[in-house]
């Protein structure tokens, strides 16, 4: 039984358009299915605005799903109430993008780490202290005494992110969602934070959903990669398979496999293919990537949504080219 099973998950945001407020929906997550074993990790990769954060938050039930199903440890948590979710909060952790924003500036390190314990009724003061010490050692904020009474602004960006990670694992969760955990850090500390997450995953059998827009950082821990585009997962496969054998034109664009017609751009590695990212309020008909696709088959791709096909074992792609 997988630890986490997501089936056709949808999250639409209702927005008002114009002064007269005709309603519209931002389809930030539009039918995502995903499954994750205990101790396994998966990367969600896609350019900014494709719905990665929304997907993460919906999985954590910080958003109420519009449709679909989330099953965690065999329990359907899709529509549980806040109170019923208490155990789920303990089993999951969140690492956000901006560590300084993710920490309350008016609390000390000790207080920050104590909050989840107090909320989850770890009543014994001594036990709380021990757990705080242990978790700070796990994230290598040592010597622990030097950090306990500090405020977040006294820490460096890397130390702040270690503290955020410490907070996310202090309740001993089974699943961590790391939403671009290094994209706002100095290049010099990125690797150590990623290695820290990698070690935690290995040592404590953590499952990690690693969200990033940067394919090159996925190699640290993910067994599998899902490529997300405009609310859809357009391709998913094991890491090695996907990186050596990308199928979807978008994935290829990300990996820069397709030579750019402009010779001056040929050898530049780009994270984002040319063209406008799609408007999720009014997604293009058919395949959402079709307006930017080099391999577009007019009359098909821009009319009908492609199905998901398993091209090789465990390698899925949502594209008309492989039907």
């Amino acid at each position, binding site marked *: 039984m997988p630890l986490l099973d997501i089936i056709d998950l949808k999250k639409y945001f209702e927005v008002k358009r114009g002064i007269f407020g005709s309603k519209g929906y931002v389809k930030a997550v539009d039918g995502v299915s995903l499954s994750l074993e205990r101790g396994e990790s998966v990367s969600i990769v896609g350019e900014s605005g494709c719905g990665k954060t929304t997907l993460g*938050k919906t999985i*954590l039930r910080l958003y109420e799903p519009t449709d679909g199903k989330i099953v965690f440890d065999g329990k359907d948590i899709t529509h549980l109430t806040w109170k019923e979710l208490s155990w789920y909060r303990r089993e999951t952790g969140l690492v*956000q993008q901006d560590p300084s*924003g993710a920490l309350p*500036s*008016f609390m000390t390190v000790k207080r920050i780490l104590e909050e989840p314990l107090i909320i989850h009724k770890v009543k014994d003061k001594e036990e709380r202290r021990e757990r705080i010490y242990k978790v700070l050692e796990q994230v290598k904020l040592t010597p622990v005494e030097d950090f306990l009474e500090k405020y977040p602004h006294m820490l460096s960006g890397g130390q702040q992110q270690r503290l955020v990670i410490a*907070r996310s694992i202090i309740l001993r969760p089974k699943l961590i969602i790391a939403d671009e955990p290094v994209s706002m850090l100095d290049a010099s500390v990125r690797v150590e934070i990623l290695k820290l997450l990698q070690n935690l995953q290995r040592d404590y059998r953590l499952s990690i959903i690693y969200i990033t827009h940067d394919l090159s950082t996925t190699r640290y821990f993910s067994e599998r990669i899902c490529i997300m585009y405009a609310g859809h997962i357009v391709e998913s496969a094991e890491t090695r398979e996907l990186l050596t054998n990308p199928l979807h034109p978008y994935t290829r664009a990300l990996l820069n496999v397709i030579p750019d017609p402009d010779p001056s751009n040929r050898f530049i590695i780009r994270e984002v293919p040319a063209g406008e990212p799609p408007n999720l309020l009014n997604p293009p008909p058919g395949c959402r990537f079709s307006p930017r696709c080099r391999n577009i088959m007019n009359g098909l791709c821009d009319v009908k949504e492609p199905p998901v096909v398993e091209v090789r074992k465990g390698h899925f792609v949502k594209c008309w080219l492989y039907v």
Partner: protein
Amino acid sequence: MPRLKHFFRQLLLYKSATVGLAIILGLIAISIYTVFSIPYSDAIKLWRAGEQYWLDTPRNALPSWVNLFLSKKLPETIILDTENPQVGVSKAIISAGEESSVIKVEFVFDYRYDDFPSEINLFFKSSYNSSPPRLTIHWVKPNGEDIVLKSMLVAKDDRYYISNDEKLARRLRSTFSVKLNRTIGYDLPILVLLFAQEDESLLDPGTAKVMKGTYRLWIDGIAFEKDVKLDAKLVVYGKVYGWAGTDHLRRDLGIALLWGTPIALSFGITASVSVALIQIFIGALCAWFGGKVDTVLQRVTEIFMVLPFLPTLIMISTLYKFNIWVLLLIVILLSIFGSGVKNYRAMFLQIKEFPYVEAARAYGASNFRIVTYYLIPKVLPTIIPSMVLSVADFVFLEAALAILGLGDPLAPTWGKIINDAYVNGALYKGLYYWVLEPSVMLALTSLSFAMLGFTLDKIFNPKLREI
């Protein structure tokens, strides 16, 4: 704690904050001193006792220290009491046979001030069985002239208001007319007749001069009984009293000035802190919960915002007389749904989107915990300046209500002093000290909080500095 120290060092870099803080500390010191040296119940008693308690103090006297600045020295009050033997007081009661006693009382005092006293009263306490003592009261001026003031029977608890004795005044005026061989064209007051130099200058109240020297008041009495007791007290009321002066009821203004301090401070601070905290809480509730909670609280706020605050308060306090703490409660209730709620709501609408709030939700913090532990502490430091500033507003508000006669009628407050002064025409009578003293206290209080508040604002919201 090192943060706090750092903060204070930064604060004291500003002169305005240093001065403001010094004044506030002074006011707090006064408050502490007052609360411990004159318990509130005593203060209220003293303030409400009226003329029963305040027998020996002059009416509308200036503070004593004005003599330091005047070339013509104003008189202090002189009290001579046979119950309190001292130099210049003598009393003898001699039984003369079985059926009678002879009473002799003498008060001697030096009078060297440049102005006349404001009043003279004699108080008697006597005890007898059936026949009250008959007294003859004499006044001897420094030039040796002996004037009989009055002959009277004294009751058990009796008094003789010498300076109000019209009969005596007429008698003295005619004696003086004969002596100076001139008609006295105006109602020369008794105090002048008893204390003035007997020459032409007497004819004009502006030029009448005090005859300086030793005065004597002696009483010759007889009672037809053996065991008569008699005590007498002579009070020559001056024109200055204490460090603050007195009001129209002879009350020492010092009491109200002192007690006004803790009352004003506690009123202002309680009101501003509780209004700010409640407004923050309401603002946080609106922003966090949104929906119906938000709508209801917002509409209530809007209703209170269009309600004119001062007229409403005046209306309420005209209909009901409140004690000052009930008034405080009403002021708080009328203020909590103010524009602050809207400001705080706007602040919280931003703060609630901060990632750390989302993180708290992700580890399961309840709504209540998020509002109180995550949203409110974030804005607290930024609102301290406006909280300090509004202390001054509330102190002024309380004073304004008291001045309009709508405050607590019994509490000894600064506003009440000004109200008394106003009702009794203090400025018209030239009794400036009566208005100035409470006004200075009010001004100092609001000035100090304003200076501190503005500096705090500069430190907490540094963007203002450039503007």
